[in-house]
């Protein structure tokens, strides 16, 4: 571990005064800018094309002029070079790193995760696991080893904290839920790190076994979930159903974003030691102030491995204007969904997360899967496909849903009910109407 000691190991960094934090971030940003321009062909081309000179960045306001890029451009570079070495990475000596993949609707890209990167990012992430209660000697259930970038970081987290781990067979797909439940029952981890959709699959497996989920999780003290946004009501309902002391949510991506909840659960603290987050208006490219939603643009502050610098994640998010009661100075943020999952209905932008917030005012619908139906033509009303809840009269629920949607969004709404959301759409928050009609006439 000493060989790759973290460049930043300030325990109290999350309580630095704001001006000290900004000075640190500016230094780190200027360092990665220099590194990117000198060492990484992708950025040299990208900056030269935009006639951008990195040395001219003297302030955080100057940094906002660094040209942004998206996944589409990263994939173009990959395809042009016909190699995983798209120019966003400098490989260390052989044996000093691994490759991971990220997949999405646009395609698959590759990330080079050097040991130096893993050490810095993992040491940073360990803070969040400590917030969530992971301690030396505790046993943690770890999902998705080897192929997922989160697991690469968790490998370091466990060593840093001194926790032990149990790894269930398989991967985080619902068909492996029985293995995960077995591992929790057999080896009794006190801490579970898991992807939210998989946690729901575990709940479904408990119900299939006619087992109270709280019984299965009785030795689990805390759960850390990532992978999909939870509403506050969802979190509380899950916590109650599982009988755990707390559930913490994390946001992140392998390109550089880390934002994690503290015990106050007021939002996700941006891990300012490793990443810099901006919210940008996709139409103008201008920065948006705290409290306004826009595209999440991230910059990794780690000059190792694959470097993403002013990368537009095309996720819809916000930096929250209020400070957290924990008094940590790292700003709070939320990410709601992919920008591509935004629907335009009667001139309004509607995001599935906001619809969920609305639906979950009805206790019967907390944690019930649903999706929005998107039409190719102009939409004047909202279409919903909702899985029938175990309790409640769907006709009455439908009436109440209409009332809530009208009150919140000023829109009419039609709710269709399904016994179970079709497998191909499980976990999908927006379904295209043409696909829905093709299947259901």
């Amino acid at each position, binding site marked *: 571990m000493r060989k790759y000691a973290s460049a930043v190991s300030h325990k109290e960094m999350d309580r630095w005064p704001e001006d000290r934090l900004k000075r640190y971030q500016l230094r780190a940003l200027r360092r990665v800018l220099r590194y990117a321009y000198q060492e990484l062909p992708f950025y040299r081309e990208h900056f030269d094309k935009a006639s951008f000179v990195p040395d001219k960045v003297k302030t955080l306001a100057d940094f906002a002029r660094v040209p942004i890029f998206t996944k589409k451009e990263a994939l173009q570079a990959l395809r042009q070079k016909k190699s995983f070495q798209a120019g966003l990475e400098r490989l260390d000596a052989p*044996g000093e790193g691994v490759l991971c*993949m990220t997949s999405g609707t646009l395609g698959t890209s590759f990330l080079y995760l050097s040991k130096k990167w893993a050490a810095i990012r993992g040491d940073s992430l360990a803070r969040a696991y400590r917030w969530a209660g992971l301690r030396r000697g505790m046993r943690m259930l770890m999902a998705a*080893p080897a*192929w997922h970038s989160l697991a690469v970081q968790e490998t370091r987290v466990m060593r840093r904290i001194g926790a032990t781990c149990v790894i269930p067979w398989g991967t985080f797909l619902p068909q492996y839920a029985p293995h995960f439940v*077995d591992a929790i029952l057999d080896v009794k981890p006190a801490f579970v790190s898991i992807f939210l959709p998989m946690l729901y699959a575990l709940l479904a497996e408990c119900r299939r076994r006619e087992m109270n989920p709280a019984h299965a999780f009785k030795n689990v003290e805390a759960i850390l979930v990532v992978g999909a946004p939870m509403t506050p009501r969802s979190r509380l309902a899950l916590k109650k159903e599982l009988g755990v002391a707390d559930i913490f949510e994390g946001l992140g991506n392998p390109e550089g974003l880390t934002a994690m909840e503290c015990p106050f659960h007021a939002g996700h603290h941006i891990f300012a030691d490793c990443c810099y987050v901006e919210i940008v208006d996709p139409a103008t490219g201008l920065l948006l102030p705290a409290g306004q939603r826009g595209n999440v643009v991230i910059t990794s502050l780690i000059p190792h491995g694959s470097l993403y610098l002013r990368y537009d994640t095309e996720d819809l998010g916000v930096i929250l204007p209020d400070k957290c009661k924990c008094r940590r100075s790292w700003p709070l943020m939320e990410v709601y969904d992919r920008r591509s999952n935004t629907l335009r209905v009667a001139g309004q932008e509607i995001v599935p997360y906001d619809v969920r917030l609305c639906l979950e005012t009805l206790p019967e619908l907390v944690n019930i899967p649903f999706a929005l139906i998107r039409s190719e033509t102009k939409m004047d009303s909202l279409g919903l496909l909702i899985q029938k809840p175990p309790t409640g009269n769907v006709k009455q629920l439908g009436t109440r849903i209409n009332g809530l949607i009208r009150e919140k969004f000023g829109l009419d709404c039609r709710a269709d009910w399904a016994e179970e959301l079709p497998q191909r759409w499980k976990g999908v928050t927006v379904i295209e109407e043409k696909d829905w009609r093709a299947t259901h006439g």
Partner: protein
Amino acid sequence: MDGADPMSQSKPPSHFTPRSLRALRAKAMRRPEDFAATFPVTTLEGLAAAKIKSGDPYALRRTKKNTPKVALQLEYDMETALYAALDSNELSRYAEALRRCWSLLGIAKGDRVGIFDYGTSPVSYLASSTFTPYLQRGAADILGCLPICNDGAANLSQRAVEIVKFVRPRVMFLRTDCLHPFTAEISRGSMPLSSYVDTLVAVENEGVLARAERDAYQAKLGVPIYRLMRADAAMFLAPECHRCGLFHLWSDLYHVEAPEPQTDRETGRQASRLVITNWFATSCPTIRYVSQISACLQPPGCPADARDLRISA
């Protein structure tokens, strides 16, 4: 306990210490027939029964009271899940076994290695210290290679093809149950696989891809396909050698018996279920584990390494 002759009486695995295991190994090498006569075999069914009866996830094999650094659920379709417990030393020795497999398969410094298997397979988690907590050096760290793991679900074959196209691994390990979808994706893309990859290695837990099937895929894909033998309950790995066509194994890591050979009606070959003893598993010793792998032992003498014992399957 250490002073007692380990061969004089059969002890349950939980009573072994690293020292007594070393003594046992020395005796087993000197008097293998006495070793086989003294120690009863361990079976998957026996492990499952011990776990169900005791509630101990390690089936009463655990030698240490402390929590293992890493507990891995094994790939077995039994009525109850089975687990292996590993500490840092064991992870290192197990990774050394994988390293030897890689070296025999021709993987060397600077090579890229693709893995189409679950992260929970030893083929994946032993590849790099970055993949697994408390693994000091994985096979890629020792040899100086760049690994990438795809996960092991068959419906991720398209991603495996992306690895082939953009990473061009010298060697690609893949689960035998992913061979068919992978081949289908390669065919769909009309890709000349040999332009991207030198070798494929088919991996299976407690089984070996049949030669005829391997030959058929080899002909279809146009690259050599070797096989890697795995028996996770014994933390056993053995690679097929490109020079002699047999599977190599190492006496400092494993003791393998092939008792009571039977004649296969179809092939006429003599084979037994391999009985494996693992010499580095000190947290959960595996003594005379009866695997599902049907094979027979062959004498050493391969030009690649004349010291290695060998198995034909």
